[in-house]
């Protein structure tokens, strides 16, 4: 479908919707500006989408499913939750907020907000007016534009200055087995005031193997000296498409610690961007991806060192099997005033098959002169000397290879400080590696 027809299709799909906060002029204005920026989806002619073809997404007419009633209970979602984690919980199914599966109103946090965006838009729109739709730029790409044109629902966390969340916040985005051709567009907004602090988990998973599109945008606003630990785990159906953008605005001395796990989806694209708008900020971007079959995973990150004395540290590892393909593109921009920047960026890949392919490009652009920056990328295969060493001790060839593969990527699992979540991620990773069961039995 050409861009004009596609635009028409989504225009009418959106027009038929009663969107939350429809009476808010500022919101309608931002939505329509975003839709105006929607000129279809990016093509491989766009430099940032050079290696990621989204023609398959363009071909399907994905549908919004407002008001669809979904009969799920606690038992159905149990397996997607982090075991043993006491948390505030928000659950979305097929893009719809599920109050019955989320924390009850009586269990709401004291002093801060953990709610669906739609609720916040109807009850306290002034709390998000200055931020919603102002951090992520809809004109960045068609997906961000389409998400911003809807901005209907998603997770909203608002911590006033000085507020430290007493429990982590766990957000579940699920798609049901019959959810073919759905587009779910979570719009998340996390606002931490000065000195506020929280830990947020975003989990994207499928309850079946349907073909659908998740198109998420997460905006994060961190006040002075605020801290956010952000964990995202994507294990969606192997037939689905996952496109997401996380855009962070960091005030002085704030800390953003991010850990991204991308394992599922036929095509996954993650944009992860942070801007240091004050001195002394810190941003850690850790992550891992495992792909197999014909999967495609694209990690694009950009850290803007606008102000001096900030530190960013990015490390991603990937394991690619089958005919899968991954893209890593990390940009670090050190602006002219950003003296004493400390930036490092690394991407390491392990190719398990001859037909797997990686395009990795860590990039540094430095316009300040007194900075410490390092970057690097590696692509390799299993070390045959190590394979032989393990086999010479009696491990069979397959076991030796899986042990070495897990050892490679396991480093990124071990970097997760929270044991309960580390366990979850380890399980997901092992489930996707050849011989994972054997390794699990060893541990």
């Amino acid at each position, binding site marked *: 479908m050409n861009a004009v027809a596609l635009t028409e299709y989504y225009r009418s799909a959106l027009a038929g919707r009663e969107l939350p906060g429809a009476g808010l002029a500022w919101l309608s204005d931002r939505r329509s500006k975003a839709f105006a920026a929607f000129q279809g989806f990016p093509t491989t002619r766009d430099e940032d989408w050079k290696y990621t073809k989204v023609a398959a997404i363009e071909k399907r007419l994905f549908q919004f499913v407002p008001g669809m009633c979904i009969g799920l209970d606690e038992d159905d979602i149990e397996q997607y939750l982090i075991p043993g984690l006491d948390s505030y919980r928000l659950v979305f199914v097929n893009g719809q907020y599920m109050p019955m599966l989320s924390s009850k109103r009586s269990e709401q946090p004291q002093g801060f907000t953990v709610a669906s965006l739609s609720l916040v838009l109807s009850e306290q729109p002034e709390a998000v007016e200055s931020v919603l739709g102002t951090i992520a730029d809809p004109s960045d790409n068609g997906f961000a534009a389409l998400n911003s044109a809807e901005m209907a629902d998603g997770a909203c966390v608002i911590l006033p200055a000085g507020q430290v969340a007493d429990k982590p916040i766990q957000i579940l985005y699920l798609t049901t087995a019959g959810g073919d051709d759905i587009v779910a567009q979570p719009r998340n907004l996390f606002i931490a005031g000065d000195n506020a602090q929280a830990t947020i988990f975003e989990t994207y998973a499928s309850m079946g193997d349907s073909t659908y599109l998740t198109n998420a945008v997460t905006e994060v606003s961190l006040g002075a000296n605020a801290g956010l630990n952000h964990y995202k785990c994507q294990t969606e159906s192997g037939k689905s498409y996952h496109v997401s953008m996380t855009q962070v605005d960091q005030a002085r001395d704030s800390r953003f610690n991010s850990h991204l796990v991308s394992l599922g989806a036929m095509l996954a694209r993650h944009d992860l961007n942070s801007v240091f708008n004050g001195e002394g900020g810190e941003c850690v971007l850790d992550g891992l991806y495992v792909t197999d079959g014909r999967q495609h995973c694209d990690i694009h990150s950009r850290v803007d060192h606008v102000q001096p004395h900030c530190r960013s540290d990015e490390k991603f590892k990937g394991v690619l099997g089958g005919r899968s393909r991954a893209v890593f593109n990390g940009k670090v921009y050190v602006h002219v005033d950003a003296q004493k920047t400390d930036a490092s960026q690394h991407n390491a890949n392990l190719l398990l098959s001859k037909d797997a392919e990686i395009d990795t490009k860590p990039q540094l652009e430095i316009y300040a002169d007194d900075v410490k920056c390092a970057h690097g990328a590696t692509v390799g295969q299993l070390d045959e000397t190590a394979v032989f060493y393990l086999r*010479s001790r009696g491990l069979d060839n397959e076991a030796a290879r899986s042990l070495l593969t897990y050892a490679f990527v396991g480093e990124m699992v071990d970097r997760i400080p929270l044991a309960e979540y580390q366990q979850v991620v380890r399980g997901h990773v092992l489930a996707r590696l050849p011989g994972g069961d*054997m390794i699990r039995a060893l541990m």
Partner: protein
Amino acid sequence: MLQVKDLKVSIDGKEILKGISLDVKPGEVHAIMGPNGSGKSTLSHVLTGREGYDVTSGSVSYLGKDLLDMEPEERAREGIFLAFQYPVEIPGVNNMYFLKAAVNARRVHQGMEELDALDFMDSLKEKMALLKMDDSFLKRGVNEGFSGGEKKRNEILQMAMLEPKLALLDETDSGLDIDALQICSDGVNSLRNKERGFVVITHYQRLLDYIVPDFVHVLADGRIVKSGGKDLALELEEKGYGWIEGIDAA
């Protein structure tokens, strides 16, 4: 238990072993000495099944089976163990998990039950004490960041845990100070018995003061040029390899 007959091996078309014959019987300790590049490690790699070597002629039989026909892991499970000259560092593979996997792979193959976690730990702790290794080692990656001496001790520990029938030690003594050498040799000697065979490859006669061999072979340029009893090592120490090669030429 091990019969090597006229073994010829090439790497990339270059002949490295030029007809080796060796007969190791249960309980015997054979020492193989020889100058740098004479083919000692090549022999140990071919016996353990490493890829990249072409056996152009000869045969190796181990406990009545054709050894060269077996995969490396099969040889290991049948009781062959090689202490590497250069043990491999494997970051991220936990030492203890690795040892447990290795021990149980062999046990299952030999029709024994897998060791449970407690029995495994008991056995491991006992052997670690013998080799004076501290507990922190268990949590580390295989040989990851180990000193030269620690790596060699780790090889001996693996050997002690795997209880091989035939152990090949490739320069386990190289780079060890006298205390570490004593510890490693004690470890080896504690495993000596009537059934177990050893092939000890070394540069230095010094090791043979601690691990006293029954036979000494001199390997030079891919051939065993002289064999004898333990006194041969002393003679070599005194007169150098030139002496052998001199005799050979005469």
